[in-house]
């Protein structure tokens, strides 16, 4: 059910302007220009790359069930139409926190580290230092070895410290009980095996896909909480290192972003970097697209944003040339900023 809700929400965001394949590529995190641009235009950052292993078969099965339940109509050329009841269901999906754009599957690295640390400490507590590691990836193993040594595991206090950090961060991170149960059930220790997806799905009476979505959503909000309060979580903060992707910009755009952050104007940056002003504009558009927290109101008034959005709606187009004719007092740069930001702006 959760998967359906999320899917309908994505379809809703796409505003019937893309084909039925677009959500699939988004969830898989396809690195194509189209998908990346769509993330910005339709404001779909949260869902990008949350299911890298999703199979087309599975996706189509769910899609067919949505058609059967009359949430969506699909036409031959791949376009679609959402029914009214679909829009209600889509709203429920908004409740789940995701931040795919920033984590991009790295949440699994965080959990792999955690699960091997927990398994190691659990065995150490029982004086059993030889066991078969649950994580086979050599890099994870090396990382964990390092972590244990740096944090003086031999003193034997790490178990208690980690336990306290995990409990207090999970308790204050505003997650439902069910979500925390699912994540902790995936941990294993001395003479304690973890539960498989199938077993959890039986226990929680959810599909395996929904269990996994809750799991990913939980990791996203947990890691976000840890990063926002890093001073409180000395150990967990280390585990979350390099998990969040720093604004994924092209190298040159990144330098522009740095200068802009320091307070230089676009003209100054153009001068400093000896680049054409139009190039700097491209960079700013890229930043706006990639960083949902980057404010575009410094370049265009809220009112003008609304005007552009209305023009988009009225003429049902995103073509710059036509839009510029409708709102001639705005520059191409300003219009592109609005398009880069998509629906959310001004609302």
């Amino acid at each position, binding site marked *: 059910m959760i998967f359906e809700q999320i899917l309908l929400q994505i379809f809703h965001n796409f505003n019937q302007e893309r084909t039925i394949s677009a959500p699939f590529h988004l969830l898989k995190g396809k690195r194509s220009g189209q998908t990346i641009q769509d993330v910005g235009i339709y404001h779909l950052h949260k869902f990008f790359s949350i299911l890298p292993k999703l199979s087309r078969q599975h996706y189509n099965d769910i899609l067919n069930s949505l058609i059967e339940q009359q949430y969506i109509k699909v036409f031959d050329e791949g376009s679609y139409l959402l029914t009214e009841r679909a829009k209600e269901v889509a709203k429920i999906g908004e409740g789940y926190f995701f931040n795919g754009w920033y984590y991009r599957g790295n949440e699994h690295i965080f959990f792999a580290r955690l699960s091997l640390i927990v398994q190691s400490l659990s065995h150490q507590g029982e004086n059993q230092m030889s066991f078969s590691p649950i994580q086979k990836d050599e890099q994870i193993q090396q990382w964990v070895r390092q972590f244990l040594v740096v944090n003086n595991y031999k003193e034997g206090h790490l178990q208690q410290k980690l336990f306290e950090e995990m409990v207090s961060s999970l308790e204050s991170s505003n997650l439902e009980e069910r979500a925390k149960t699912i994540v902790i059930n995936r941990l*294993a220790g001395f003479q304690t*095996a973890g539960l*498989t997806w199938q077993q959890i799905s039986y226990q929680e009476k959810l599909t395996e896909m929904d269990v996994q979505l809750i799991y990913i959503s939980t990791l996203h909000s947990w890691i976000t909480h840890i990063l926002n309060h890093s001073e409180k979580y000395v150990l967990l903060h280390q585990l979350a290192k390099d998990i969040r992707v720093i604004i994924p910009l092209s190298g040159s755009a990144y330098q522009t972003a740095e200068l802009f952050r320091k307070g230089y104007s676009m003209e100054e940056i153009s001068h400093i970097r000896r680049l054409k002003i139009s190039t700097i504009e491209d960079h700013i558009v890229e930043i706006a697209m990639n960083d949902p927290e980057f404010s575009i109101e410094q370049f265009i008034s809220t009112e003008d944003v609304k005007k552009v959005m209305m023009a988009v709606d009225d003429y049902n187009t995103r073509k710059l040339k036509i839009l510029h004719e409708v709102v001639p007092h705005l520059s191409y740069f300003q219009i592109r900023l609005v398009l880069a930001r998509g629906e959310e702006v001004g609302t």
Partner: protein
Amino acid sequence: MELEKVLEQHFGYTSFRPGQKEVIEQIVNGKDVIALLPTGMGKSLCYQLPGYIFNKPVLIISPLLSLMQDQVDQIKQLKEKRVVALNSFLNASQKKGTIQHLHQYRFIFISPEMLLQQQVQQKLISMELSLIVVDEAHCISQWGFDFRPDYLRIGEVTAKGNRPPILALSATATNKVLGDIEFYLKMNNPYTFIHSVDRPNIHIGRKMFQNREEKLDWILEHVIETEGPGIIYTQSRSKTESISERLLQMGISTAAYHGGKDPLDRQFIQQQFIDGSLEWIVATNAFGMGVHKQNVRQIIHESIPSNVANYMQEIGRAGRDGRDALAMLLFADGDDEFAKFVGMDDFPNEVHVDLYIEYRRKDELPSTMIQNGEISETAYRVLDYWMHQFHPNEVKQQLYAMKNDKMKAVEEVLQLIQTKSCMREKLVHYFGQTLMEKPSNCCECCGLEYKDIIRKREQSDYKEPTVSWRRRLENILLGFS
């Protein structure tokens, strides 16, 4: 030198298991050895112990990456740090580092494809080895069930003049395969140790059905009435899922297992099966290697295995504790056709040869076939190997011959299903051995009472109490105090 002393010092055992000492003595004396030891009989000790006698690295060539990791883990559990696996899991810099320090390890596990790489070969030439081990050596033979083309080329390495002894290990091999091992590895008049393949405490049952539904009904009834732990082997991933689903609905703790499962799930399933919280596993042939469980009481073959050697290996996972166990071979009309079809699924055919040529002619990489979904990866590997060895027409002949072999292998299993004489005798014969003695309740044909072998299943309504996430975490990290 007293081998027993080394055994106790490094492994904590006081005596050898059958065959181990003979094999190790020959190796220590510098002789090549072929050892056929059933799984679970301490095959790996045969090369681990010499590792502590010689002060030079032991090189172990192993075909399956997952198995390799398992073996490395096991050695590490014995507190041995000087062990490494050189395989495609390593990234470029890890690989470089490992090769550079290769001579410092005691045990070096390596995949055949890695062995053939030039930088590896150069390093190997510059260092002295104490022993070369070829694990799962039957993979070298096309008569074996698991032929790996890369294995044929191990001979290029073992043919070197001044080499240490070679130890070829396998759990199962026919006489023909034995000949191939000796020939292709260029072994020098090897000492051969063959453990009897017969496992008298495994009782061999068989059952025929009109159709697949009847068969499924029998399985469900049998599992609910008799005691596990057990493994049900079937051919397809989807079948493992559907059968396990049915058993779960009946309240039997079961898990499906196949190569497509989440890696962490696979670990959990193995661990739960070993600690006894899972009664039954429904699996493809991906389950079993590296799972060391002593008290498996039942093996059920829902679909017929693709050859006798596989069958032998799979039923061999029962009764490692020496107590009675039951192996049931089920058959419904049409199963043999299905088995042949599945066996061919991962095998290239003439059409693929033509496609391969076509790609080359268009100046495209033939491996594009995989991406275009025209051939499976496994099948491509076989095809690619032969296309480098022979002219296309010869490859076609070769593939045709191999295909015939595979068909024949299924036919041999079929004989086991149709035979009216002793099934155990037939199995042992297949490996070129003679059966000395028949146990009571020998097999379906000799007469077999299932209830003498396996116990009635006790219905237990006991369910592990579910604990809160906080308590669970506390138990794991701080212990069950």
